C-alpha cells in the first residue's frame, strides 16, 4: 500500500518537474505551451493526492481547459512564433549563483512551512461549520468565514476584464474560419452537458466539493468551446448592455450583501445564522454566473464587437 502511494507520488513529481522544465526551456514555443497544458493535468492529479478535490475540480477546468485555450490562441496571434527567447545557459558560471540560491530558497521555504501553527484552522472551521449555512468547509470559508477575500478576488477578475477591454477591440477575426462541419455538431452535443454539469457542481457546492468557482470555470471554458465551434455570443445587443451587468453581477451582489449586513449587524459579511444559507445560495449563483462570463470575456483579448458578423 505505502510503497504504491510513494511510487505514484514519485512519478507525479518527476513528470511535474520535467514538464515545468520543458515549459520553460523547450525549443519552440508550441512545445512549451503543450508541456504547460499537461503540467496542469498533472497538478490536478496532485491535488487529488493531497486531499483537495475542490482544487482538483477547479484545476481540471482552469489549468487543463481555459488556460490551455488562452495560451494556444495567443500563440497563434504572436507572429514571431519561433524559438525566440529560448533560454540559454550563457555561462556555466551561472550555476555558481543558482545552486546556492536554490539551496537557500528551499531551506527558507521549508523552515517557513515548518513553523506554521501546527493544528491550522481545520478544527475551528469544523467547530463552526454548523452555523455557516453550508456543509462543505471550503464553501463555508469562501462565502462565509472569509468572504472578504472572495469579494476582492472577484474584484480582481473584474479589473482584469476591464483592463483587457480598455486595450481596444478584440483582435479580429475573433474566431477563425470554421475548419470543419463537425464543430457545430460537437458544440450542439456538448452544450447541454456543460449546462447540466455546471449546475450540478453549483448545487453540490453546499455540501460536497464543488461550488461557484468550479461551476463558473466549467461554464466559462464551455463558452470558449462554443465560440470556437461557431456559436456567436448571445448577449450582443447594442453597447453590450447585458454583458456589463452580468459581468459585474457577482461583485455587486457581494457588495450589496456586505453593506446590508453592515447596516443590520454592524459588521461586513456577518450573516445572521438564520439567513446564512439563502444568502450564500444567492451569492453562489451570482458569483458563478459572473465568473463564467468573466472567464469567457477574458478569452476574447479585447472588447467584444458590437455586432458579431460571420467572418469569412
Amino acid at each position, binding site marked *: 500500500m505505502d510503497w504504491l502511494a510513494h511510487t505514484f*507520488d514519485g512519478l507525479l513529481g518527476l513528470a*511535474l*518537474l520535467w514538464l*515545468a*522544465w520543458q*515549459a*520553460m526551456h523547450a525549443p519552440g514555443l508550441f512545445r*512549451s*505551451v503543450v508541456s504547460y497544458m499537461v503540467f496542469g493535468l498533472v*497538478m490536478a492529479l*496532485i*491535488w487529488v493526492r*493531497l486531499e*483537495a478535490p475542490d*482544487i482538483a475540480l477547479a*484545476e481540471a477546468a482552469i489549468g487543463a481547459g481555459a*488556460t490551455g485555450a488562452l*495560451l494556444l490562441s*495567443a*500563440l*497563434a*496571434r504572436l*507572429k*514571431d512564433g519561433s524559438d*525566440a*527567447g*529560448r*533560454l540559454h545557459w550563457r555561462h556555466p558560471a551561472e550555476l555558481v549563483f*543558482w545552486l546556492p540560491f536554490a539551496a537557500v*530558497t*528551499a531551506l527558507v*521555504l521549508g523552515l517557513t*512551512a515548518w513553523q506554521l501553527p*501546527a493544528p*491550522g*484552522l*481545520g478544527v475551528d*472551521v469544523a467547530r463552526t461549520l454548523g452555523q455557516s449555512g453550508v456543509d462543505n468547509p*471550503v464553501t463555508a*470559508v*469562501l462565502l462565509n*468565514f*472569509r468572504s472578504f*477575500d*472572495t469579494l476582492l*478576488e472577484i474584484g480582481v*477578475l473584474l479589473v*482584469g476584464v476591464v*483592463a*483587457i477591454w480598455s*486595450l*481596444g477591440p478584440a*483582435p479580429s*477575426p475573433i474566431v477563425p*474560419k470554421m475548419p470543419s462541419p463537425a464543430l457545430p455538431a460537437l458544440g450542439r452535443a456538448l452544450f447541454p452537458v456543460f449546462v447540466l454539469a455546471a449546475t450540478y457542481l453549483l448545487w453540490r457546492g453546499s455540501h460536497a466539493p464543488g461550488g461557484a468557482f468550479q461551476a*463558473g470555470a466549467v461554464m466559462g471554458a464551455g463558452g470558449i468551446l462554443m465560440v470556437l465551434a461557431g456559436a456567436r455570443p448571445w448577449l450582443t445587443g447594442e453597447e453590450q448592455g447585458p454583458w456589463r451587468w452580468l459581468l459585474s453581477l457577482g461583485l455587486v451582489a457581494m457588495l450589496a450583501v456586505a453593506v446590508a449586513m453592515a447596516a443590520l449587524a454592524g459588521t461586513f459579511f456577518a450573516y445572521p445564522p438564520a439567513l446564512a444559507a439563502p444568502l450564500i445560495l444567492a451569492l453562489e449563483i451570482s458569483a458563478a454566473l459572473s465568473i463564467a462570463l468573466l472567464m469567457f470575456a*477574458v*478569452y476574447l*483579448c*479585447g472588447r467584444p464587437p458590437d455586432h458579431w458578423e460571420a467572418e469569412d
Partner: protein
Amino acid sequence: MFYAILACALFVLGLHGLFASTHMLRKLLSLNVLTSAVFLLLVTVADLTDPVDPVPHAIVLTGLVVTVSTTAVALALLIRLSPGGSDTARGRPEGDQ
C-alpha cells in the same frame, strides 16, 4: 514532506525561468509555474493536520482564478506588443487560410 520538497524545487525552477528567459511568453509560463509551486506548498501544509485545513484550500481556489485573469491580461498585452500582433489587433486576417 515529499510534496514540500517538490514545491521548493518547482519554486526555484520557476524563479530561474522567470529571470533567465528572454521571451515574454516563457516568462509568463514561468510565473504560472511559480504560482503552482506556492499553491502546492500551501496545500501540502494544509494536509499535515488531521481535519484537513480548508482555509488554504479556499485561498488556493481564489488564487487559481486570479492567476487565470493575470495570465489573460498579460497575454492580451503581449499580443498587442508583438510585431505582427498589432496587425491582427487592427483587423488584418490572421494566418493564410
